[in-house]
């Protein structure tokens, strides 16, 4: 049996904290980082449950600023 | 040796022929009296089949000038033509072209105004042309033809100046010159530029970005005041250079004259006859004809006015170019104005009588 494991890299400085990625993620991987802002003053998101990520790309696709880079690897159990 | 063919045609028709022959890439325009023959002639000549020149009747003058903006922004030689009320509609686009530094050409075959006005000739758009009818600090290069030959010759000249300085250029004609028929020698055929030639002449143009350069962006917008002031200063420096180098004017019988008539376009043609009539009466008069209305030949007028007794500015409006003449001579000699309004074209004798009553017999 194999499954997909994903990983996302978020461009924190480019993120504006719009949260569209959080509602698009089917695994609740992403959330607003608590009490943090980037140098532009925007709150930003981070992967709080990275092991749940399957690399489905939803977050990357819906991000209006192209902040998220998505990686995916097939893993044998 | 190529023999030069002499043809008989209207000023409007000469513009159309000259546009094709000077390698224009496109014409976009809208019908309006008294210049619709320009687009009609182009449509009949079908240059898209010979030189590949685009000819498109646009939905309005607003669309026309924005098409010129679009084409010029991509490095192409494009022009539009209209008459006074249509040129009023184009002022937004002209200001944008000046701000974005685009080499478009437009022609105004003037008619009486203001508003919808009349279809008869006038010179009432001098202010609109030279004072920048659109918003902001800018100038367009203004050429004033006084013959069908100059209508033909000034198309290539307008393009040359427009591209040399990356600035809009206009030919300010009127219903007399547009509609009258005269002998003309049309300019020789010049091929349209290739893509390579355009790239070289216009490295700034938005025509598709090869990887070897940064994107070219044609815009007149700048939100930072500091940067915008610098851009404006550069524009002003450009205009100063044009003023220093591109003045054109003509003088007839001015050397021994006591009085000078200053006139442009069709008024100058009429005034030529007035000079003759006045000299027959023993009054020594000369004619000074500005060919570029902007840059205005101020220095030349000042030089000329030394030792003269007075200047009569004869123009078919309520007094527009006379302001520039008065500014130039700065009170050193009397400057009077004569004009007819509302589409009436004066007789040579009217100009003669005006000079006598306002200057000689004063």
């Amino acid at each position: 049996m194999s499954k997909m494991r994903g990983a996302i890299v978020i461009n924190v400085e480019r993120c504006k904290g719009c949260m569209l990625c959080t509602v698009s993620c089917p695994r609740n991987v992403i959330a607003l980082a608590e009490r943090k802002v980037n140098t532009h003053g925007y709150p930003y998101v981070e992967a709080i449950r990275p092991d749940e990520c399957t690399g489905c790309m939803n977050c990357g696709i819906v991000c209006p600023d192209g902040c998220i880079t998505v990686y995916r690897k097939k893993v044998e159990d | 040796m190529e023999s030069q063919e002499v043809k008989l045609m209207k000023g409007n028709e000469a513009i159309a022929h000259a546009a094709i022959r000077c390698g224009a890439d496109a014409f976009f325009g809208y019908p309006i009296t008294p210049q619709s023959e320009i687009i009609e002639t182009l449509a009949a000549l079908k240059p898209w089949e010979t030189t590949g020149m685009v000819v498109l009747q646009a939905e309005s003058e607003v669309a026309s000038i924005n098409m010129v903006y679009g084409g010029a922004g991509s490095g192409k030689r494009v022009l539009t033509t209209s008459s006074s009320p249509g040129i009023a509609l184009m002022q937004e686009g002209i200001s944008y072209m000046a701000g974005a530094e685009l080499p478009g050409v437009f022609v105004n075959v003037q008619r009486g105004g203001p508003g919808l006005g009349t279809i008869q000739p006038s010179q009432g758009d001098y202010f609109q042309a030279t004072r920048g009818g659109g918003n902001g600090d800018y100038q367009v290069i203004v050429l004033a033809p006084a013959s069908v030959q100059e209508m033909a010759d000034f198309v290539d000249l307008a393009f040359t100046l427009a591209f040399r300085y990356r600035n809009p250029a206009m030919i300010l004609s009127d219903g007399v010159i547009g509609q009258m028929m005269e002998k003309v020698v049309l300019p020789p055929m010049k091929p349209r530029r290739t893509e390579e030639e355009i790239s070289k002449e216009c490295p700034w143009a938005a025509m598709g970005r090869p990887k070897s350069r940064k994107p070219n962006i044609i815009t007149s917008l700048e939100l930072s005041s500091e940067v915008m002031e610098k851009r404006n200063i550069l524009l002003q420096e450009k205009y100063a250079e044009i003023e220093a180098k591109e003045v054109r004017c003509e003088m007839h019988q001015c050397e021994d004259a006591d009085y000078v008539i200053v006139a442009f376009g069709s008024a100058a043609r009429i005034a030529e006859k007035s000079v003759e009539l006045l000299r027959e009466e023993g009054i020594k008069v000369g004619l000074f004809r500005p060919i570029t209305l902007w840059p205005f030949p101020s220095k030349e007028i000042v030089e000329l006015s030394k030792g003269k007794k007075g200047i009569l500015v004869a123009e078919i409006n309520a007094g527009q170019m006379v302001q520039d003449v008065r500014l130039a001579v700065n009170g050193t000699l009397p400057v009077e104005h004569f004009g007819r309004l509302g589409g009436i074209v004066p007789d040579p004798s009217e100009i003669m009588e005006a000079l006598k009553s306002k200057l000689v017999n004063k």
Partner: protein
Amino acid sequence: MTQNDIIAPENLVYSKPELMNDTTMHYCPGCSHGEVHKLIAEIIEEMGMAEKTVGVSPVGCAVFAYRYLDIDWEEAAHGRAPAVATAIKRCWPDRLVFSYQGDGDLACIGTAETIHALNRGEHIAIIFINNAIYGMTGGQMAPTTLIGQKTSTCPYGRDPEIHGYPLNITEIAAHLQGTCYVSRQSVDTVASIMKAKKAIRKAFEASMQGLGSSLVEIVSTCNSGWKLSPVKSNEWMRENMFNVYEKGDLKDTTNIK
């Protein structure tokens, strides 16, 4: 298996297109503009047309589109983009030429230029961002503002007695003989983004094949103007705009899959 084992170039499945540069975009958080810009960048790259594209940007929030996508651009006066695009394409027929406009630009001040360029069948694609409000100037009423919707110039809600009705310009476009492809999409979900990308791609392909003019409307959000969060804006849009501005292909004579 650690995150670092997965994050490797051979495992890359999604990233910002290269044609979209690293300049921070000035759009509000969650604004649809960013998404559509991204799709356009991807499409131009996939078509291999990065060196032969000229975009025409509007007056509106997207006036600065030219800062974010590394192609040649011409900034047009308000509403005039279709005229500007007409000239560029007629002068350079082998280029991909598109205009990108908001609802005020395309359906208000530029109505004549929009209708006539489409009706002439110019070989251009017009991308229409409809968020039922004037974003850049601070949230005034647009021709596409809904009945009852509150904006700064109809603070008590749009009233047809005073303000007339919302304008369905895309329906008008579908009836023009010159158009070959007219579609209305959105970019609020992954599925809708995929459909929107297909529609924009088809419009671009149709223009390159000289089949006529194309209009792709993207029903969009303006969370600042609407005074809702980006997530809530998408919900409001789904609940209120999709029944006035119905999604789908209104016209397709292109035969492009």
